């Protein structure tokens, strides 16, 4: 029964005249009138919140979105087979985190060693010799395989202590990974690893699903273009590569896509109670998945405030209650995480605390200059932090074209140039589309501002982390496009708009070519990885 229906009945009963004296009856009638009027005002002010029927909701899901999800999941499953065990950035550390969570039932530490079982597997598959050496393939003889099987058959201990670089991350992804880890506990470590990789592949499916829905909400008038955005992202090799491995970036991409979708839904339909809960829950899951989600938080908060102000104009104070609900749900895990960390003597927000510390130590202006150049050409007056390097092209673009394994597997150099031509054409079509829909853009400027703040927040966080890495350890910083996976919904929207930029007549054909381009990129990326590790 709907809330509106249920609230009508008592109001109707209340208007029935009672059989008592005239004066007292008048007083009561007036009191009841006032009460009914107050109820009606309250009802008018309340934000419409349609009753949620799971079956209806499932029926309303577009089949194309489900197919995009299926394709992304299958693609990531292919990547999980192609990429050799532990030849993805930090996979040994992420596996160790899950193993120790499952075996010891407590969070691992940064120091200390992996379990003897993991150590033996890393040794037997020559993980260290292969990593960062593109000229060295994986094990290639029957003897090496036999040795691996003999060592695994002896059931070495699964108890370890440390999880290296993964130890600073929140535990939600690893808790989920403990399920396939447990399911595969009767087999070997390699069986468990493959099952865990398949859970990550499921995350790729969720990502593509929400990207499709995000594009649908942001470009409601061009239904054919939704598929271009959703399908291209589903076939993106970087998503497949990272989601074919044990790495929380896969889940971060999924939960970020869900957050983008919920916000877009809010901008289109208004902030309802259910949507406030959804945004809060998605944010809470994001915070508990990977600390990088903190970069999206300013944009999410801004979006919630904008949605609440709009709802407040139409429906009054109840909108603020929804805002408070969303914020409370979103922030609660951060509070818990802070408490657990502070209680165990660690920095409150893990490695993000170091970034905030850096700001307190007066890095601000130096850091802003560094972060700018981390992505864009240097401006006059800035110190040159990247001499001899065009970060936009040589880091972010070229590395997006293809950098697999432990970032040691790339295409021949000429491929980057060819990719630049394709990207240039897509950018032209996208720009044309923006010009055509400029009136709509103006109307929805605030919405786009929210997405922009989310983007800048994430970029700033990654840049600041890299700056601290350079300042403290003198390294070259962290620069890999996988950190941008949370922005995949925007890529989906850009590609859909680019297809629209070709006009109504040629748009669908151009959209088909964009999808084929991503499919080709995916296939050649897989061949490149196969050639590097097994050739």
């Amino acid at each position, binding site marked *: 029964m709907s809330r509106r229906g249920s609230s009508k009945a008592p109001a109707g009963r209340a208007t029935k005249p009672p059989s008592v004296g005239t004066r007292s009856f008048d007083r009561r009638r007036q009191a009841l009138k006032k009460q009914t009027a107050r109820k009606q005002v309250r009802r008018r002010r309340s934000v419409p919140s349609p009753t949620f029927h799971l079956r209806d909701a499932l029926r309303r899901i577009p089949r194309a979105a489900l197919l*995009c999800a299926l*394709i992304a999941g*299958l693609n990531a*499953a*292919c990547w999980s*087979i*192609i990429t050799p*065990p532990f030849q993805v950035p930090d996979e040994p550390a992420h596996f160790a985190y899950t193993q120790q969570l499952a075996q010891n039932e407590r969070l691992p530490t940064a120091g200390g060693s992996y379990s003897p079982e993991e150590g033996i597997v890393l040794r*037997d*598959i020559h993980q260290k010799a292969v990593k*960062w*050496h593109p*000229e060295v393939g994986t*094990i290639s003889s029957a003897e*090496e*395989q036999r040795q691996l099987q003999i060592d695994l058959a002896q059931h070495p201990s699964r108890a370890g202590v440390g999880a290296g670089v993964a130890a600073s991350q929140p535990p939600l992804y690893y808790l989920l990974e403990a399920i396939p880890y447990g399911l595969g506990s009767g*087999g070997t470590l*390699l069986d468990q690893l*493959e099952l865990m990789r398949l859970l990550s592949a499921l995350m790729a499916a969720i990502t593509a699903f929400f990207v499709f829905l995000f594009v649908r909400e942001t470009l409601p008038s061009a239904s*054919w273009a939704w*598929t*271009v955005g959703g*399908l291209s992202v589903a*076939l993106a090799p970087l998503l497949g590569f990272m989601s074919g491995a044990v790495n929380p970036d896969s889940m971060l991409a999924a939960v970020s896509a869900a957050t983008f979708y919920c916000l877009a839904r809010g901008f289109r339909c208004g902030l309802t109670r259910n949507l406030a809960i959804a945004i809060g829950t998605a944010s809470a899951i994001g915070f508990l998945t990977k600390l990088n989600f903190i970069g999206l938080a300013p944009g999410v908060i801004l979006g919630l405030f904008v949605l609440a102000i709009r709802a407040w104009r139409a429906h009054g104070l109840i909108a603020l209650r929804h805002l408070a609900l969303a914020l409370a749900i979103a922030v609660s895990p951060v509070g818990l995480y802070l408490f657990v960390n502070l209680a165990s003597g660690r920095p409150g927000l893990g490695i993000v605390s170091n970034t905030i510390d850096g700001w307190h130590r007066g890095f601000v202006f130096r850091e802003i200059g560094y972060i700018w150049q981390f992505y864009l050409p240097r401006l006059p007056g800035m110190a040159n*932090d990247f*001499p*001899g*390097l*065009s970060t936009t*092209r*040589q*880091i972010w673009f*070229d590395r997006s074209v293809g950098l697999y394994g*432990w*970032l*040691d597997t*790339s295409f021949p*150099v000429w491929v980057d140039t060819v990719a630049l031509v394709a990207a240039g054409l897509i950018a032209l079509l996208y720009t044309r589309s923006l010009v055509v829909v400029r009136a709509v853009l103006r109307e929805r400027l605030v919405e786009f501002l929210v997405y922009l703040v989310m983007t800048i927040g994430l970029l700033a966080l990654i840049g600041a982390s890299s700056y601290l890495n350079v300042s403290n350890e*003198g*390294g*070259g*910083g962290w620069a890999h496009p996988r950190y941008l996976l949370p922005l995949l919904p925007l890529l989906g929207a850009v590609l859909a708009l680019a297809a629209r930029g070709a006009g109504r*007549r*040629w748009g*669908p*054909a*151009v*959209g*088909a*070519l964009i*999808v*084929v*381009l991503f*499919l080709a990129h995916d*296939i*050649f990326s897989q*061949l490149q990885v*196969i050639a590097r590790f*097994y*050739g």
Partner: protein
Amino acid sequence: MRSVPVALAGGLALVAVAVGGTLSRPPVIIAGTNSVAAQLAAGHTRGDTRGCQQGGTLPGGTAAIRLSLSANVGPKVALNVRLGSRVVTRGERDAGWGEEETVSVPVARVARTTPGVVVCTTVGPTIESLQINGTPKRPTPSGALGLRDVLLRIEYLRPGHRSWWSLASSVAYHMGLGHAPSGAWIVFLLLVLMFAVAALASQLVVRELR
């Protein structure tokens, strides 16, 4: 609208031809080396430097030269291979490579084998310390040496003689090792999955893009 199936079919046909063409070519193999051992972190440099060393015999057909330099974000690397005053081949690799313990620099294809070449390496400005892996020319504490003080390991790369097609069975066997599930059959599983991905994507494009 027929343009969508036509674009899709044309695009897929082009991809199939490109895949077939790529697999018809041979993989890159090591044609020769200068026989220097690549000791990790034998030296470091902040870039903007140049060093020359004996390169041994440069094999005919060489299309790229691999040097034992490593970085997270590598600087521009230029190579100049000479015999006396004559330049035999040259090439360069833009900045941004990594993360590897080596860097491959594409060079103009060498027509014939040339013994006794000198390889000069020029490294551009770096954003981090570039690690030099090789053999020190003189005994000095590790890490205190620059590009001129360390002999780099040099590998000459050229296309092999057999195509990827002819290596397919050995690649499939190799792919079945060190995995779970193991066995060459996983290659067939992989093919089925990828064909399913391509078929589903094509079906979706034809149905939705109208």
